[in-house]
């Protein structure tokens, strides 16, 4: 069986890639994709810990399902916001959305 730390290192890599993507993309949809990658890394961590530490109980899987639900809600609201912003400003490039910067 694969050691637990391998999963943790892969999840760490995925989280860092997602974080970098969320911070460097100019486009709001690109930022959202980075956030989705980070949420996936968290879920991979949760399931790896579930499998290697408490596989007899279902707590880890239940937690992961709740995280997926929150991710789906977040994606729906985020994309609705992006469409609303696009309708008003005709751009979704985050550096150009400077309404609140003095």
């Amino acid at each position, binding site marked *: 069986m694969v050691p637990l730390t391998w999963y943790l290192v892969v999840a760490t890599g995925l989280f860092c*890639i997602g974080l970098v993507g969320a911070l*460097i993309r100019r486009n709001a949809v690109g930022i959202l994709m980075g956030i989705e990658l980070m949420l996936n890394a968290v879920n*991979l961590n949760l399931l790896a810990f579930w499998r*290697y530490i408490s*596989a007899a109980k*279902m707590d880890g899987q239940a937690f992961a399902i709740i995280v997926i639900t929150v991710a*789906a809600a977040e994606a729906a609201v985020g994309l609705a916001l*992006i*469409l609303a912003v696009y309708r008003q400003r005709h751009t979704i490039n985050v*550096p150009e959305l400077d309404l609140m910067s003095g």
Partner: protein
Amino acid sequence: MQQVIFIMLSLLTLGAALMVVTSRSLFRSALWLILSFAGIAALYILLEAEFLAVVQVLVYIGAIATLIIFAIMLSRNVMASDEARFNNQWRLVVGFGALLFVALAAIVTQIPWPVNVQAVPPDAIQQLGAGFVGPYVIPFEVASILLVAALIGAIIVARERE
């Protein structure tokens, strides 16, 4: 054997994730994102969480990735690839991300995790379903309220105003 499959799947997932972040066209990013989600689903199967793998395919590939592609296509000029894709602090952020990865990887490999590998019960999915109407009923209901709120909120935010 499992190690080889794991390494191939994780290389696929991480490579696709890298392409998501660096791809010039946002639409291609979304397609790479689907591949990355599929790699994660395969890793879930390797972890013997078959139900979560199905949920991953249904929710992430079937719903979230489709929604993202919709948003890309509904907003003009994101398909154009001539303008800059990164903001001007990307060098700093990539350095910080690499540093964070090294630090976190060092931490997770150093900690002696209390690993206790047990067999997954044969009725795992049944237990999960019973759990959602038993001990986890409060988080389950909160998640449903959250979903309804997000549904209504998304409609109100995205609707066209005269």
